[in-house]
């Protein structure tokens, strides 16, 4: 009996991500959730601009490629047009929390019935390692070569906490994929985010604290250790908002 294999919702093509990049893990978790809920045939995914820009080649469901940061708006359009379809976006921190913050906040406050998978790896990966809205204080990047100085570059944005302050969104959870236990937790959260949509419960966002070994200048394992030691203390894991139990359909 097969206990673990590539999910069907993930296309049979090699991913272009760097060795040890956790995008691959999260892609798989999304695809597993799609498989288990039997929604591949109705799912429509929205790819971002960033490292995951080619996600449209990786998920077996219908896909659209959005402009940088606009995925929640594109997903809004699709969901309004096709309420019976399951619509999700997959976005990084530059896409979602910098250039696309307005789209994110407003989709959340409208409690748009969509699912957002948000990868927080504290850096711009695709363009070669620049400071992200989520880069940690003191973090050295290409555009913060002396470390992120909060006096000039401001503080990291805690997306889950920020969105949880809104009345609108239904479900906000932060997870990580730095070890087996956390990956399993992340899987549960992602699945719940899709279930919420199926049940018409509204906006769900799962923030996934992830790694970027290449641009952090670490080995893949060192990067996961850094997630544990530096990222998670700044970005505590947990459910930040859950209206799903109070509001049934």
């Amino acid at each position, binding site marked *: 009996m097969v206990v673990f294999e590539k999910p069907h919702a993930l296309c049979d093509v090699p991913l272009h991500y760097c060795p040890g990049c956790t995008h691959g893990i999260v892609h798989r978790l999304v695809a597993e959730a799609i498989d288990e809920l039997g929604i591949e045939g109705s799912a*429509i995914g929205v790819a971002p601009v960033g490292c995951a820009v080619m996600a449209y*080649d990786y998920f077996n*469901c*219908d896909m659209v490629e959005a402009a940088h940061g606009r995925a929640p708006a*594109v997903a809004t359009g699709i969901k309004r047009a096709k309420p019976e379809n399951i619509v999700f976006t997959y976005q990084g921190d530059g896409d979602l929390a910098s250039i696309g913050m307005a789209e994110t906040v407003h989709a959340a406050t409208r409690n748009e019935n969509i699912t957002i998978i948000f990868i927080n790896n504290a850096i711009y990966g695709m363009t070669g390692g620049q400071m992200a809205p989520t880069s940690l204080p003191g973090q050295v990047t290409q555009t913060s070569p002396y470390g992120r100085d909060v006096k000039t570059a401001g503080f990291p944005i805690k997306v889950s906490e920020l969105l949880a302050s809104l009345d609108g969104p239904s479900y906000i959870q932060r997870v990580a994929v730095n070890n087996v236990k956390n990956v399993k937790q992340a899987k549960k959260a992602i699945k719940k985010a899709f279930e919420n949509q199926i049940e018409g419960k509204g906006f769900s966002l799962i923030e996934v604290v992830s790694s970027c070994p290449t641009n952090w200048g670490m080995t893949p394992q060192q990067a996961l250790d850094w997630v544990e030691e530096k990222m998670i203390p700044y970005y505590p894991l947990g459910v930040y908002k859950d209206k799903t139990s109070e509001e049934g359909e």
Partner: protein
Amino acid sequence: MSEKVLMKGNEAIAEAAIRAGCRHYFGYPITPQTELAAYMAKRMPKIGGCFLQAESEIAAINMVYGVASTGLRVMTSSSSPGVSLKQEGISYIAGADLPALIVNVQRGGPGLGGIQPSQSDYFQATKGGGHGDYHLIVLAPASVQEMADLTAKCFELADKYRMPSMLLADGTMGQMMEPVLLPEESDVTVEKPWALTGTKMQRGHNIVNSLYLKPEELEKTNFDRFERYKQVEENEVMYEEFMMDDAEVCVVAFGIAARVSKNAVVEARKQGIKAGLLRPITLWPFPSAAVKQAAEHCKGFVSVELSMGQMIEDIKLASDCKCPVELCNRAGGMIPSPEQVLESIKNIAGGKA
């Protein structure tokens, strides 16, 4: 049954869009197109449609992109500064070969400009507007009736050629009230096998996209798209000729400028000047052949514009600069008077009468 009603131009667009089967509207408040959004806000919920006031023009056009990718008829409307904000999304829609309608009820610019009518977005509308090689089908109404009719036409052409279309009106046209015979409800269904509907596990996944990292592939999409544009240029040019048969002076004007010009042409005829009006209805594709033909028998052209002179370049191109083209313009929200147009007609006619 169609009925004749008195309507504002902006409202006529909205009602015509609904009758053309558009059930999704996304917008952001801006003068002077607000009545359109307000009309949609009132009507859409009553007919099971979607009106959504977006957080920005940028979000609105990307919502349009989302709906367009599912194959449904969808629109947004704005005025000049807002349409500038939409350009990124319009480029993506063009790059992904999606049909959609963008309405621009123009006001004066640049920058925040003013709220009075203008035609100074001609370049932006007809030459692409955003980044990359692309065109929009651009229709320019000159009456409230045409606001309605051309809205329907915009949807039809956008679907037919899989490209975004733009209704380019101006503040006067938007605010003007005229009787209008509303078009019949359309139940046209266009096959859209590329649309995102979910695979239903019965086909491979559809991808709506404008990213091609291999330059030879991207080049091919551009060449293919321009082949389609060629067909549009061959098949879809629309214009109106008024007293052009024996015209010696050809006035070229669209939208509100054409209405003013018509009066000037009539007055010129009274004064013995053989003037005529060529009114482009499609600004892209531009009626180049008609202009070229006019250049064969006219002494010259008068380009009447609510801008610093934008369409005049297309007239010069189409006429191969065979005869003089005089610009008769006002800008910043001002409208040329019939007397001003008549003056220009006289200049071209050579001081006759």
